[in-house]
C-alpha cells in the first residue's frame, strides 16, 4: 500500500504545521489522508466494522491529544499513527480474548461446500487481479484464527505493505520478532487454506515426485 502516499504533498505539510499549532482543521486534514490505511489495519486485525471503527476513532483521538508529544517530521507521522492504532487494536483484542465475541466466532465458520481456494498463479501478482469472494472469506477466516500478535504482524506487512522495520516500530518489537511472527502467521494461513481445499495451484508442474513430508 502506498508507503508515502500524500506525504510529499504541500497541502499535507501545511496541514501538518497547522496541526502543530493546535489547529483542529489541520489535524483533520491529516486524519483524512491517513484514515483509510489506519482503518484498513484495524478492520483486518479486528475482523469487524464496529471494533475497527472504535479502534480507529480511539487511535485518532489519542493522536490528537498527544500530538504535541510527537516530535518527528511529517514523514514519521504515519508510522506513529500505525503504532497508536496497533496498540488500540491489541487493547481491544485483549479485552475480547477475556470475553470472546460473536463476531470473531462467526468468522471462523467456513462453508465446506464452496469453491476451493484458488489463486491462478503463485506469484504475489498484480493488485488488479481480484480475489473471488470465497477466497476473500477464507483468507479472512484464516486471519481470525491467528493469535493477535501474528495477525497484527501479517496485516501490517502483507495487507498494509509495511516494511519489516516499519512493522517493528508499529508493534514496538525487535526486527527478528516481526520476522518470526510474520513467518508463523503465513505458515498458519498456508496450512489453513490448504485444509480448506485446494491450495494454490500446484507449483511448477512437476516432475514425478510425490510430495514428501518434511
Amino acid at each position, binding site marked *: 500500500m502506498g508507503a508515502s502516499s500524500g506525504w510529499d504533498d504541500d497541502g499535507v505539510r501545511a496541514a501538518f504545521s497547522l496541526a502543530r499549532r493546535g489547529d483542529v482543521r489541520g489535524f*483533520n486534514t491529516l*486524519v483524512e489522508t491517513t484514515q*483509510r490505511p489506519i482503518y484498513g489495519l484495524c478492520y483486518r486485525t479486528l475482523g469487524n466494522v464496529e471494533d475497527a471503527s472504535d479502534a480507529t476513532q480511539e487511535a*485518532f483521538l489519542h493522536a490528537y491529544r498527544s500530538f504535541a508529544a510527537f516530535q518527528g517530521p511529517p514523514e*514519521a507521522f504515519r508510522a506513529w499513527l500505525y*503504532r497508536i492504532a496497533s496498540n488500540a487494536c491489541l487493547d481491544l483484542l485483549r479485552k475480547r480474548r477475556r470475553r470472546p465475541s460473536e463476531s470473531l466466532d462467526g468468522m471462523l465458520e467456513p462453508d465446506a461446500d464452496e469453491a476451493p481456494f484458488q489463486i491462478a498463479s503463485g506469484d504475489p501478482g498484480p493488485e488488479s487481479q481480484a480475489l473471488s469472494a470465497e477466497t476473500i472469506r477464507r483468507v479472512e477466516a484464516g486471519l481470525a484464527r491467528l493469535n493477535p500478535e501474528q495477525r497484527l504482524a501479517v496485516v501490517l506487512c502483507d495487507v498494509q505493505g509495511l*516494511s519489516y522495520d516499519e512493522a517493528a*516500530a508499529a508493534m514496538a518489537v525487535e526486527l527478528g520478532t516481526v520476522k518470526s511472527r510474520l513467518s508463523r502467521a*503465513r505458515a498458519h494461513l498456508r496450512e489453513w487454506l490448504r485444509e480448506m481445499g485446494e491450495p494454490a495451484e500446484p507449483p*511448477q508442474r512437476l516432475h514425478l515426485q510425490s510430495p514428501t513430508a518434511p
Partner: protein
Amino acid sequence: MTQSPWPAAEHAGDDLLSAFVDDALVADTRRQAERHVAACASCRERLEETRAVVGALRRLPAPELPRSFTVGPRGASARDELAWRRLRRSYAFSRYVAAGFAALFVGFTGATLVVPPGPPDSPTDIRAAAPAQAAGAAASAPAPAAAPAAAPAPVAPQSAARAAAGAAPASADQAAGAASAPAPAGAGAEPTGADVLEGAQRAASNEARALPPVATSLVPTADPRRRFQSGAVLAGLGLALSLLLAFNLRRRSRPPATAWPGFAPAPADRPGSH
C-alpha cells in the same frame, strides 16, 4: 532471523520461506535456497503456497470507510461531538423545564400557605416573621439562577423569595444555597459544572437530613408558622431535585474522557517497502 546456510538434506523452514518470498535473504543463503527448492518438490510447493498466501493478503480489498474519523474541537470524535451538542441543546431545554417545575412547585406551596384552611392567623404575620437576612439572601440568589433560563424564570424568584422569607434561618440558608447553585452554570462556565453539582447535592443532602422533622410537621396543624416552614423546606427540596435532574443530565451528556497510558512516539523510521 539467522540466515545460516542449512544442510542440503534438510527442508527449508517457514522463516526461510517467508524471507525468501520477501526477497530478504542474503545472497549466499538465497542461492542455497534456490538450489534446494529447485531440487525439492515439497519445499517448492510450500514456497509457492506461501507466495500465494502473501499474494492473496496483498489483494484483500480495502474495506470501505464506515464514516470519517475526524475529531471535534474538544478532542472528541466528530460524531460524539455532534451527539453532545444535541444533548447540550436538550440540556438547555431541560433547564427551562426544571425552572418551570421549580416555579410551579414553589408557587403551589406558597399558595397553600397563604390560604390556610382553618382559623387563620393573619397571613401578614407570616411575612412579618421573616428574618431580614434570609429574605435578602433568597431574593438575590434566585435571580442569576433563573436569568439564563429566561421565560419561566420570573415566577420563580418572587415565589421563592416569598417562601424563603418566612422560613427559619436554617432552611432559608439551605434554600439560598440550592438557589445560588445554578448561577455559575447559567453563565455557561463548564469547569464549574461539577462544583455546582456538588453544591446541589450537598444542598439536597442537607434537605434530606432536615426531612424527618418536616415529615412530622406535615401533619395538619393549626400553626401556620410550622406549616410555612415545612412548605419552604419542601419548596427547597423540589428546587434542589429539579436542579439535580438538570445537572445529572448534563453530566451524562459530557463525552467520556478516555485515559490512555502514556505513549512514547515511535522512532522516526524510513518509509519504504520490502
